[in-house]
């Protein structure tokens, strides 16, 4: 179990993390979804004991992290956002070193290294120096290092950046197995799909704050039973805003030049709106209507689009 209570951290003027609270149960994968600079890594670093929070408390199981950092380290596994290992060493040598430092010994360590390398399809390359690996292969090693000592609480900071679909599924599998074994997992990402596919519960974060959290279903109800309309065309912000005055403000999820996302009570309200666009001489090239998804929730809450 991992619990954060009213956690805050500022860097000068920037409120990197602003009064964040949540709890992740054992066996649960909890996703922290947020754009660049949302404060995800800052949270991970505070839990890992590398940054002192300005405020708030952190528990891992029954241990209070800030009071007992040494005991916390034993429970914790962290996969940092940056690749952190020795490039000149082989995968095997790296894993052996990191496992040993974590106190895993002898045959158990060797078996685990073998198991994870096989699982992630790297066994054949185990003896090559990591500097000869591709980006995706390095990512996998970066992940395995955090898993070797089978921590009670696992913090994963965007572990799948730059990874192809196949490998990504592979990594999901490893993470899901860890969760099934009872590990508490905090998973940060700015990838909507990933959050949808992998996480049991999701917290949407922006500018240091958690805007909403819950299961995917719960989050979608925030937008309600609506049709999400995506419009693309040639229109300026001001012109579009003039047209949109006819709609309630919460219906506009996102408005950019040439791009508009609306949450409509019913798709039947779309034709009259298009009519208004044409009257003002604005062109629309492309319209699509979708069911509410995490994306629309995210847009609704932050007004920001997430791009990979």
């Amino acid at each position, binding site marked *: 179990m991992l619990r954060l209570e009213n956690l805050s951290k500022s860097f000068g003027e920037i409120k990197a993390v602003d009064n964040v609270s949540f709890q992740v149960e054992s066996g649960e994968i909890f996703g922290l979804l947020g754009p660049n600079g949302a404060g995800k890594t800052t949270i991970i670093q505070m839990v*890992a*004991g*590398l*940054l*002192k929070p300005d405020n708030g408390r952190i528990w891992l199981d029954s241990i209070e992290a800030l009071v007992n950092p*040494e005991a916390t*380290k*034993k429970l*914790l596994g*962290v996969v*940092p956002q*940056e*690749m*952190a*290992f*020795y*490039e*000149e*060493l082989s995968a095997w*040598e790296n894993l052996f*070193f*990191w496992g*040993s*430092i*974590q*106190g895993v010994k002898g045959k158990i360590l060797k078996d685990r290294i073998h198991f994870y390398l096989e699982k992630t399809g790297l066994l054949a390359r185990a003896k090559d*120096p990591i500097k000869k690996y591709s980006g995706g292969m390095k990512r996998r090693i970066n992940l395995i*290092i955090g898993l070797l000592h089978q921590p009670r609480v696992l913090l994963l900071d965007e572990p799948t950046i730059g990874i192809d679909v196949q490998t990504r599924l592979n990594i999901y599998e490893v993470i899901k197995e860890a969760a099934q074994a009872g590990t508490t997992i905090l998973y940060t990402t700015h990838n909507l799909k990933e959050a949808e596919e992998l996480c049991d519960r999701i917290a949407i974060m922006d500018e240091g704050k958690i805007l909403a959290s819950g299961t995917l279903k719960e989050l979608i109800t925030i937008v309600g039973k609506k049709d999400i309309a995506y419009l693309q065309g040639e229109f300026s912000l001001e012109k579009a805003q003039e047209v949109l005055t006819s709609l309630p403000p919460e219906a506009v999820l996102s408005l950019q030049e040439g791009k508009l996302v609306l949450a409509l009570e019913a798709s039947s309200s779309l034709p009259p709106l298009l009519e208004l666009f044409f009257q003002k001489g604005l062109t629309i090239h492309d319209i699509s209507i979708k069911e509410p998804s995490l994306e629309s929730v995210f847009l609704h809450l932050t007004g920001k689009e997430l791009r990979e």
Partner: protein
Amino acid sequence: MKRIFFLLRKDFIRKWKNPQVIIGFMLIPLVFTFIMGAVFGRQAEVSLPPIKILIVDNDQSLLSQLLLGALTQGEFQKKITLVKLKEEKEGRRLINKGQATALLIIPQGFAQSVWEEKPTQLILVKNPAEQFLPQIAEEITDTITLLLSGAVTIFSPELQTIRTLIESNSSRQNTLDDKAVADISIRIKGKFEKFGDYVFPPILWVKQETIELPGKKEAPQLSFHGYILPAMAILFLLFVCNTVIEDTLREKEKMTLFRLLISPLKMEEFVWSKILTAIIIGITVTAFLLLLGTLFFAINWGNFWMVAVLVITLNIACGGFISVFYSFVKTERQAGAVLSTVILVMSLLGGSMVPVDIFPQFLRPISRFTLNYWGIEAFHRIMFGRSWADLAPIFIAFTLGGFALAAIGSFFLKKNLVKGYAG
């Protein structure tokens, strides 16, 4: 403790797989020694200042005057400045103050012994502070002794003249007129030049092996290579230590330190593992250098155990010394700039690049505050067959100083590394 072992192992494998830098630091001193040996070994006297020898002539005989005359002739003239003194006491005082390279005492009855072809002895007192020049002075007097022992036969015609002169001037035996002495000196000089190829080593160090004085016991010789290599080696050992300890900052930049910080590892363990790695790699590199020195340049390093202790303690000192500078440097680049400057300046002052012997007087005391000076000094002491008692102070100072500096260094380096992270 066990974790330190894993850290050391990890760093050794890393260095083993990426040995270029360290091998470079090992090869440079060898190449340098070779080149310097090739360039200066043949004409080293050109690069050396005149050797100042104090003379006390207790004999005041014609022969002793001739001897001194010979010392200012031909080849010798370029190398030697003679200063005649009245009293031995004054000479010893000046030598102890380090104001000359050597003191040559011509004992009373010297001439008499030579005339009678009895064994003769000159006394040469060397300046204890100089490492290099006294050797030359010693060789010169050796040569002179050799000359004298052969002189009776080679110079028999001149000796006849001298006898005649002495007999005709017997009332004032010790004050031959200058003209007569000069005349004989010139004749002797002529002979010197004629026989020069046989009796004069044109290059003192190279040909001196051919000079064997009867009864001279064999002492370890300081070869030119044997002088240069340790001096250069210490300079590059400091660089070796630096590349290893620099790794601490590299690990911070590469985020592996981040991972280590969230592991159960203690920062002390991390920092000490780096210092230890530096020391152990330093020892290995030194051992290789000495071995290669023996293989390539036939250097005789002297007593094995003394050399072994020196290599270990010297590297402790180097590791400790370098670690101190990591108390305040923040980045690898900063470290590179600061440490290169410190290492180069200290090595220059300490005699790693230019022998301290030829430094101006005011610089010499400064040399003694450098690691290089004492390292070179210790190598020389061992090569000259000095006792453990002569070396123990250096060994002890290296060890205690090294560990003390490493303790300071590791303490601040630890703080330096976790900066930006919570404690």
